[in-house]
């Protein structure tokens, strides 16, 4: 498996910390973990008190702006900054020629490489007193480009006389083909064989907080970055490495961030541009990119063309699955490619599987990891194919899927799953949705048709694992400080960790404060991505809290003359379990007062090696299709989700709804459009023409159905949530549209225009 497939481990150091004692089993009963408690930082986020990187204003701060290549493919011949330098408020201009700017990027490229391989690639940058003045200066920089022949599609990239974008050509295989069993024999054994090509369009992450940071140097070699990021430590590593600074001299701070979805897992060029501008001017520099820049140059979900062939017996047994994928990763390899085949390898029982994938380079923004890389694309193809097969053998789509639920991970040497809720997601989900009744109900006869669809999914990651170090400090008044490196990207990480502390130490929420996401003051954590944050951090937090408890009970045991195992913490007091009249306020312990603080350290233990831990999902959609206009309304939606233990019922449901919303975007609204015929430029690099789902595009009252099978792979039993929950959404909607109309939509997004054409072709449009 290539590095790109395992992006969620990219920033993890090679060495795992030394193993401690065997992990504890998860709780059997909880008082606060799992409960729908309000977020610990709700006040900050709704009052405006939360300071995002975009909100940071420092004394004497300058504003940066970046000049980007306006062409899909060009060579910079000449840059003239003389006019720009004389403009009001301009304090520094940097280009490829600036000392220190020779920073390697994208393999053989560099920070301001004159060879620009996509529209939006960085050419120069300005720092000025105001952002307006910075942009005035950017516009005044004269650049001469040699516009080069460009490639804007797979067809152009594979044409015989296509210009080569890399020394190795325009096409790269993503790993060796995967094969198990014998697909030829599998297809021969099938009663029914189906084949179809499905495609997904390129999606842009489009977090509402754009990309950027504030850079400030203290002295010559100490750099602080206030950054909008999913992980402060990966940024620290890249910045230290490329600027040749000690890790300790790079402080990255990012306690609040306004959305990332994979696009903010690691460093971008802006950190380096801001740092160079700050260095040159001797002043702090804020550099946030505009929306258009964000749409062009900060990642995307690569489009994939997937040809899937499947064989099935009349009784619903899958005999063979074969998938050939062609992806488009953009101008450079920057993560997020591949992965579309994983659902085919692992979701359903099938002895004979073959998948092959390759990616093309084109002159467009490079892809980045985007919420479950590859998985929603793969599910788009597999889950519609499952629907086709079910229909062909006259079996209910839920029943057909249930018939093929594996207990082992076929993609991981047939190891058993620690738990798999796929069956329950499908069965319980169908029950709660009223699947049978809804399926039997007619689709209607007029212009308005109604239908229901189902799809399932899983996520390759979501188990978490080492390394993570967490510190919990107990003060002598019983209040607690939790110190961890992880970012809370909106998923409720801080709240969940506070719940874990409260569970173990009996501290009320108001007495827990959290320091996090700061390389200068908090402990190492990998980036919040791969749906691994809660599975990784919550066991470490629990271990840190238990370490505090152990030390506290040692002190109390000596002073209260009771064995440690007889002690419990109840509302700031040490209480004897056997005789609750024996109690002592925590602050009253002389041994504690003399130390003033108890520091507990927790590490994340490795996961069991003999099991595979993976989250599962099944989703159900009811839609209404206007066959005259091609408009689709999502009436009802149910998401059944096995992410192990539900740590917080509120944030669990919220994140699931959000994943579904994003899946609706894939299904219905989102597509990067390149001007293929003319310029190769992106024609919808804004949030008006690139359509992120709005409040009017989603089911108003979706249902989240958690499936918790009490997994004990870690001491909390929480599996990943954010990514698996977006995997089945788009095919569930497409299958519902098929049920309503009999029209199969192989390409995303299913726009009214596209659906009208399909309906007309099928004679459905009157």
């Amino acid at each position, binding site marked *: 498996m290539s590095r790109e497939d395992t992006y969620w481990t990219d920033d993890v150091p090679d060495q795992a910390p030394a193993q401690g004692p065997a992990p504890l089993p998860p709780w059997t009963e909880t008082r606060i973990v799992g409960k729908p408690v*309000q*977020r610990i*930082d*709700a*006040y*900050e*986020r*709704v*009052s*405006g008190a939360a300071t*995002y990187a*975009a*909100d940071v*204003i420092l004394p004497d701060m300058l504003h940066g702006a970046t000049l980007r290549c306006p062409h899909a493919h060009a060579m910079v011949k000449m840059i003239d900054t003389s006019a720009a330098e004389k403009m*009001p408020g301009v304090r520094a201009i940097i280009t490829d020629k600036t000392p220190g700017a020779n920073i390697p990027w994208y393999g053989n490229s560099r920070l301001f490489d004159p060879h620009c391989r996509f529209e939006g690639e960085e050419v120069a940058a300005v720092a000025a007193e*105001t*952002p*307006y*003045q910075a942009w*005035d200066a950017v516009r005044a920089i004269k650049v001469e480009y040699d516009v080069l022949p460009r490639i804007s599609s797979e067809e152009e990239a594979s044409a015989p006389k296509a210009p080569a974008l890399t020394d190795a050509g325009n096409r790269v295989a993503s790993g060796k083909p995967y094969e198990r069993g014998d697909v030829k024999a599998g297809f021969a054994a099938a009663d029914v064989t189906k084949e179809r090509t499905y495609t997904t369009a390129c999606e842009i*992450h*489009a*977090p*509402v*907080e*754009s990309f950027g940071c504030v850079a400030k140097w203290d002295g010559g070699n100490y750099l602080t970055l206030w950054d909008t990021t999913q992980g402060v430590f990966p940024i620290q590593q890249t910045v230290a490495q490329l600027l040749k600074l000690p890790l300790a001299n790079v402080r990255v701070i990012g306690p*609040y*961030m*306004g*959305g990332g*979805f994979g696009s903010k897992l690691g460093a971008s060029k802006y950190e380096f541009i801001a740092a160079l501008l700050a260095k040159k001017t001797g002043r702090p520099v804020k550099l*946030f990119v*505009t*929306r258009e820049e964000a749409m062009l140059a900060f990642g995307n979900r690569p489009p994939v063309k997937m040809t899937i062939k499947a064989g099935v017996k009349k009784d619903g047994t899958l005999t063979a699955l074969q998938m050939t994928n062609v992806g488009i990763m953009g101008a450079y390899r920057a993560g997020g490619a591949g992965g579309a085949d994983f659902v085919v390898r692992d979701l359903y029982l099938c002895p004979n599987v073959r998948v092959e994938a390759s990616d093309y380079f084109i002159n467009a923004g490079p892809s980045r990891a985007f919420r479950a890389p590859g998985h929603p694309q793969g599910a788009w193809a597999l889950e519609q194919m499952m629907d086709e097969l079910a229909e062909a053998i006259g079996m209910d789509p839920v029943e057909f899927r249930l018939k093929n639920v594996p207990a082992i991970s076929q993609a991981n040497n047939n190891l058993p799953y620690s738990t798999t809720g796929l069956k329950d997601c499908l069965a319980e989900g169908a029950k709660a949705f009223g699947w049978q009744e809804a399926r039997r109900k007619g689709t209607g006869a007029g212009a308005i048709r109604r239908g229901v669809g189902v799809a399932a999914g899983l996520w390759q990651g979501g188990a978490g694992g080492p390394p993570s170090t967490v510190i919990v400090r107990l003060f002598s008044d019983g209040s607690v400080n939790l110190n961890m490196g992880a970012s809370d990207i*909106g998923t*409720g990480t801080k709240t969940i960790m506070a719940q874990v502390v409260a569970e173990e130490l009996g501290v009320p929420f108001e007495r827990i404060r959290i320091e996090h996401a700061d390389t200068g003051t908090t402990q190492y954590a990998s980036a919040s991505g791969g749906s691994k944050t809660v599975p990784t951090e919550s066991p470490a937090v629990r271990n840190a809290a238990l370490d505090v408890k152990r030390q506290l009970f040692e002190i109390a045991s000596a002073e209260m003359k009771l064995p440690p195992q007889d002690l419990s913490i109840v509302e700031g007091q040490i209480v004897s379990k056997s005789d609750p009249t024996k109690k002592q306020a925590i602050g009253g312990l002389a041994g504690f007062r003399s130390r003033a603080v108890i520091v507990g350290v927790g590490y994340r233990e490795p996961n069991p090696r003999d099991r595979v831990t993976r989250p599962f999902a099944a989703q159900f959609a009811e839609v209404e299709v206007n066959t005259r206009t091609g408009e689709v309304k999502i009436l009802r939606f149910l998401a059944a989700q096995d992410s192990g233990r539900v740590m917080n019922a*509120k*944030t669990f449901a*919220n*994140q699931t*709804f*959000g*994943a*579904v*919303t*994003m899946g609706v975007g894939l299904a219905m609204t989102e597509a990067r459009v390149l001007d293929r015929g003319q310029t190769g430029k992106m024609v919808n690099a*804004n*949030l*008006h023409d690139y*359509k*992120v*789902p*709005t*409040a*009017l*595009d*989603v*089911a*108003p*009252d979706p249902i989240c159905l958690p499936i918790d099978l009490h997994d004990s792979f870690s001491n909390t039993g929480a599996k990943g949530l954010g990514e698996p929950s977006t995997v089945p959404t788009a095919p569930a909607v497409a299958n519902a549209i098929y049920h309503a109309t009999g029209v199969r939509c192989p390409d995303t997004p299913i726009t009214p225009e596209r659906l009208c054409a399909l309906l007309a072709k099928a004679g459905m449009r009157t």
Partner: protein
Amino acid sequence: MEDDRDDKDAPPPQSLSRRGFIATLGTGAVAAAATAAAVSAAGAATSTPADAAEMVRVTLTINGRRQRLLVEPRWSLLFVVRDQLGLTGTKVGCERGECGACTVLVDGKPRYACMTLAVEAEGTEVTTLEGLMNGEELGPVQQAFAEEDAFQCGYCTPGQIMAVEGLLRANPSPTLEDARQAVSGNLCRCGSYPLIFKAVQRGAELRKRRTT
């Protein structure tokens, strides 16, 4: 609140906000191009035409407080509120009238601060997220968003809250459809819309409770 407008007879800004647009069209991410016309009407409140980079005097009323400022005529209300006054509760998302993160109330109506010039806001009452607070206490809509968990990353949230505040000022008992329309110009990429709809209902309850 003191009435300290300099010119009570000044005509209201002749702009059609994108929000007004959305209300009339009733669809999702609709066009913002029309606001270009609104921008050109900016500066109507100042008497002498000024060079783009030349500072002009402007008096703004923000959260009931009168602010005398020197601004470039091209500065957006968003830039002035955030970068000049440090009121960073109002967020910057797209600076082109598409995402709604910068929504503030102008004379009680939701408006994109990125598509409003600072000079255009002269003579109006501007309310930002900070203006909904009563000291350290959350306003009812803010409280409702917290209780209903109507956000994830929280970055679009100030704009959502201001859109809902504007809705409830005009319509204290909105239906679900009213709620969906009211926030349809505010993108939430985390996708917490269903919980935002719940927060609208909860906010309406809390507002009524506080006013009775």
